[in-house]
C-alpha cells in the first residue's frame, strides 16, 4: 500500500520543523572542509541535499559502533536500550534497501531488542537519487536509485516540488498529521516522476551484474590465485565491514567502573584474524586470503542462498573507504573481466 502526495519545496522546512517537535531530526550537513555528514539538525535551512553517499550510512542509527546494552550495580541490572524517537531525513534508496535486509537479520525469528527498539523509533525519509556518484552501482542490483515498496517515506525531487510517497504506517502518520500542506498529485506529476526515474537510471557510470560474478564464483572459475592477489593488497583496516550497510559483526565487551559493570557491543569485522581466534592462540584464518574470500563468499554466495538477495546494495561505500582498492565494485569488475576473457578464448577455439 502506498499513498502519494505533492509537497511544495517551500513547505519542506515547516514539515520537518513539525516532525522535529516529536523526534530528534537528523539530516545531512556540510562541515567546514566540505565533508557532508548526518547530524542532529539545529537549523533546518542548513540541510545539504546535493549529497554523495555519506560515510557512515544510516546503519549507525540502528546499530551504532559502540552500544551500551546494560549496566549492573549491586546485582541490579538496568537495560539501556535507546527508545528515543528519530527522523533521519535525506537517506538514499540503497540505504533503505539495506535496512530492510538488516531487519531480517536482527528481527526475524530471534528479535534483537536493542536493534528493535531503535528501529521502531526511527523514521527514514529517503530521496530518489538523481545524482549517483561514480562509486554507485545500485541500479544493477535493483536496490536503487528509487524504491517501489518497503520504505517509510520516499521523496522524488520534481524541481520546485516533491512527490511524496509513504509506505509504512509510521510514514503515513507523519504526513497525515500535517495533511494541510500536502496536495494530491496530478498526471503531470507522475510524468515528471517517471522522467526523473529514467534520468536517474541513465546517470550511472558503473554497470555491475553481481549475478554474473556469483555464477563465476560458484562454478569454480575464480581461482585462489585471484583471491591471493586481492588479499595481498588488503590493509586489514576493517573499513569495508564497518561501513557496509549490511555487515552486522559485533563483539561484546564488559567494562568495570568501580562497583558498576557496563556491558556493550561494538562493531567487529570478520576480516580480522583475531575474529576467529581459538583457545591456545590458534588462528584458523591466519592467512589473509581466507578472510578476504570469506567476506566475498558471504556477500555473493551465502547471502543469496540464505536470504535470497545479495549481501550488497551497491552503495559504493567500500569503494570509498578501501585504501587498497579491493572493494566490491573493483573486484566484481575484475571477475567480470575474467569472464569476458574466458568467453573470448571459447570464441577463438570455436
Amino acid at each position, binding site marked *: 500500500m502506498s499513498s502519494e502526495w505533492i509537497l511544495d519545496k517551500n513547505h519542506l522546512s515547516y514539515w520537518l520543523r513539525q516532525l522535529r517537535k516529536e523526534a530528534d531530526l537528523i539530516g545531512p550537513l556540510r562541515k567546514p572542509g566540505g565533508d557532508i555528514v548526518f547530524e542532529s539538525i539545529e537549523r533546518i535551512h542548513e540541510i545539504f541535499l546535493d549529497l554523495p553517499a555519506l560515510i557512515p550510512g544510516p546503519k549507525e542509527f540502528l546499530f551504532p559502533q559502540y552500544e551500551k546494552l546494560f549496566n549492573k550495580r549491586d546485582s541490579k541490572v538496568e537495560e539501556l536500550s535507546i527508545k528515543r524517537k528519530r527522523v533521519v531525513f535525506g537517506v538514499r534508496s540503497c540505504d533503505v534497501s539495506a535496512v530492510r535486509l538488516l531487519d531480517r537479520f536482527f528481527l526475524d525469528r530471534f528479535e534483537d531488542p536493542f536493534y528493535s527498539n531503535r528501529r521502531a523509533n526511527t523514521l527514514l525519509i529517503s530521496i530518489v537519487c538523481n545524482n549517483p556518484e561514480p562509486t554507485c552501482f545500485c541500479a544493477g542490483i535493483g536496490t536503487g536509485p528509487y524504491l517501489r515498496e518497503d520504505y517509510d517515506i520516499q521523496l522524488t525531487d520534481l524541481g520546485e516540488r516533491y512527490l511524496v510517497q509513504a509506505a509504512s504506517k509510521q510514514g503515513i502518520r507523519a504526513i497525515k498529521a500535517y495533511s494541510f500542506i500536502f496536495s494530491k498529485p496530478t498526471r503531470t506529476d507522475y510524468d515528471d516522476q517517471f522522467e526523473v526515474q529514467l534520468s536517474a537510471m541513465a546517470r550511472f557510470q558503473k554497470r555491475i551484474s553481481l549475478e554474473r560474478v556469483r555464477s563465476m564464483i560458484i562454478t569454480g572459475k575464480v581461482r585462489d590465485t585471484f583471491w591471493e592477489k586481492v588479499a595481498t593488497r588488503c590493509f*586489514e*583496516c576493517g573499513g569495508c565491514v564497518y561501513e557496509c550497510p549490511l555487515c552486522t559483526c559485533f563483539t561484546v565487551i564488559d567494562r*568495570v567502573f568501580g562497583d558498576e559493570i557496563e556491558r556493550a557491543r561494538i562493531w567487529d569485522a570478520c576480516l580480522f584474524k583475531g575474529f576467529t581466534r581459538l583457545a591456545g592462540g590458534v588462528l584458523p584464518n591466519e592467512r589473509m586470503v581466507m578472510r578476504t574470500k570469506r567476506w566475498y563468499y558471504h556477500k555473493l554466495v551465502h547471502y543469496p542462498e540464505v536470504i535470497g538477495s545479495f549481501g550488497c546494495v551497491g552503495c559504493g561505500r567500500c569503494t570509498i573507504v578501501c585504501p587498497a582498492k579491493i572493494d566490491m565494485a573493483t573486484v566484481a569488475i575484475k571477475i567480470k573481466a575474467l569472464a569476458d576473457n574466458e568467453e573470448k578464448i571459447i570464441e577463438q577455439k570455436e
Partner: protein
Amino acid sequence: MLKVLTVCPYCGCGCGLYLHVEEGRIIGVSPSRNHPVNRGTLCIKGWNCYEFIQHPDRLRTPLIRKNGTLKEATWEEALEYTARRLQEIISLYGNDSIGVLGSAKCTNEENYLIMKFTRAVLGTNNIDHCARLCHSSTVGGLAAAFGSGAMTNSISEIRDARVIFVIGSNTTEQHPMIAMHMLEAVDKGATLIVADPRKTKIAEFASIHLRHRSGTDVALLMGIMNVILGERLVDREFVMRRTENLEIFENRLREFTPDRVEKLTGVPASDIRKVARVYAAEKRSMLFYAMGITQHITGVDNVKALANLVMLTGHIGLPMSGLNPLRGQNNVQGACDMGVLPNVYTGYQKVTDPKARQKFERAWRRRLPEKPGLTVVEMTEAILDGKLKAMYIMGENPLLSDPDLNQVVKAFEKLQFLIVQDIFPNETIEFADVVFPAASFAEKNGTFTNTERRVQLIRKAIPPPGDAKADWQIITELSTAMGYPMQYRDTYEIMEEIALLTPSYGGILHYRLEEGYGLQWPCPDRKHPGTPYLHRKKFARGLGTFLTVDFKLPEEMPDDNYPLILTTGRTYFHYHTGTMCRRTTVLEREEPEPFVEINPEDAEALEIRDRSRVKISSRRGSITLMAIVTERVPKGIVFVPFHFREAAANILTSAALDPEVKIPEYKVSAVKIEPEETEKILKTEIKAFRTR
C-alpha cells in the same frame, strides 16, 4: 547525534576523522572524505580510536604518594605539594637538577607551555621528548645539510610520483594512509624500490627489494651514489647552482664501488646499479625513510647520506621530488617545532644564539639558561650520576620506551621526585610521587602537526572524565602555583603567542584552521597559504651542503656468545607502549602477546618450533616470549616489537648513542635465543616417549 571533526591520535599521517557523540558519550568514528591525507579511509587503529577514551582505567583524580602508595588528592593539594617540592629541589641542588619530558602525543599548545614552563619557571634547558628516540637524526642531519629538518613534500603529491624509494620504513603498517598513496602511484605505473632487511608488507609491492644487513645503510647509499657518479647520472647543473662541497665528498664516494658494497651489505652489485639508474633517471623521484635509518649510532650519517643522494640527483625542491622522513607520532613534528628539545626554542631557534634568547627573555620576562640541556638517554645517566634529582613527565612512558630498561629502572628508583601526567596508569607511574590526570585528544582543543608539516585543529567532543584536566590547564596552574602566573582563555591564545615568537608558525592561528584541513608550515604571515613543498629555488640554509660520511659498523655486532642481530619496531595493530591500543578490544585481540620473528633456518639450527616459548637474551637482560618462525626476517636477524610490558624488547636493547644527536641504536643489538626450559623438558619427554 553530533559529529566533531578532529585528527587521529595515533601516527604521523594526521588523518581527519569525526567522533560521533550521542548523549555526551563517544559512540563511533568515521573518516573525513575530503581530507587530503586519508580521503575517506582509515586504518584499523583509526577506526577504533574512540574506544580507549572512555575506558574504565582512565586516571580521574590527582594522586600523591604517601607511605609508598598513591592516594587520591585534590588538585589544590597536588599542585601545592608539587610546587613546594620542585622549589625545594631547585634551592637545594640548582635548576639543572630537574629534567622534563614533553610529549609527541600532546598538542602544540601544550608542548609550547611545558617548554616555556621548563625554561622560564624551572630555569633549565633539560627538556626533551621521544623525538630523541625516533627522528633526532633527521632534525640534526637535515638541519646541517639543508637548514631545516622535515618532510619536504606533501602526502597528496605521492600518487603522481614516478619513482618511490622507501628505505627503513614499513610504510604499509606504520603509516598506512601514506602507503595508500604509494600504492596508488604504483597502480599508475610508478616504480617502487624498498630497502629493508625484513620482508615488510610494502616490499611485496616493490619492483626491487634490497635486503641489506642491518646497520649497513651508509654503505648501501654510498654504493648507489658511486654508480650515479660513475655512470654520469649526476645532475651537474643542480649541483653547481644549488649546492657546495661535492668535491670533498666525491673522493670518499669513489671508495664505495658496487662490488665492495656488495661485500659490506649483502646486496648484489647488479641490484645496486639498477636502483641507482632507476632512481636517478626519473625526475619525479620521492625518497622516504623512517626508523630503519634513524635508530642507529650512525643515524645522522644515514640521514646525511640520503641528503647527499637527493642533492646529487637534484631530486629536491619540486613537487613529487624530495626527501621525506616519515614522522612516527601524531604530533612529533609539532613537539619538535615547539622546541621541546634541549637546544632550541620554537621553530628551531637556538638557545645558544643570544638574539633568540633575548627575544624569548623579553617575551617571557625571565632570565633564560644559556647552556643546552640533557637529552632523554642522558637524563637517565644523569640520574644515576646523582646530578638529576627530579623529573616531570607529560604523556610519555620511558619505562617501556627507553633502551636498556634495567638501567632505566635503577635510575628511576633513585629519583627524589617524579611527576607523571598521563591519561592512563602506565609503567612509569609506578615510580611517580605525584600523578596528574590529563584529558585525551577528544576532550580538549588544540593543534597537531602531522608529518607533512600540516598544522590541524583538534576539537573537544566531550568533557574529560572525573577531575582530569587538559595538559595545558595543568601546566598553567602549576606555573601559577610556582609564582609565574600563566593565563590563557583557551588554546587559541597560546597559539597566538607561538605565532608571535615563531617565524615558521607566524600565520598559523586557530581561526584560519577552522575552515578546511589546516596549514602547512612555513606560513610566515596571516595571508600566507602555507607551503606544500620545501627548498623551492633555494635551501633553507642557502646552498645545500654535501656532508662527507663514512661507513661504520654498528656498536654491538653479533659474536659467538650473542650470534644474532635483534632489531625492534612496531606492529600494525599496536602503537608504541600500548597505553591506548592495548585497551582497545579489537587491536588487543589481533596481537595479544609479545613475539619474536625468527628465520626458519635459524629456528631449525636452534631447535625452535613455531609458536613455542623462547628465551632471548642480550648482555643487558633477557625476556621470554613466543617465537614466530617466518621468512619475513632474513637469516641472522630477529625482530621483536616493543609494545609489550610482559616481554619488553627494550630490556635487551643497548643505550649506544649516535655521537651527534644521542639517538639510541634500537635497530641493532646482539642477542642469543634458546628454547625455554619447559620446552626443553617437553622435548626430552617426547624423545623418551618415542624411544619407549
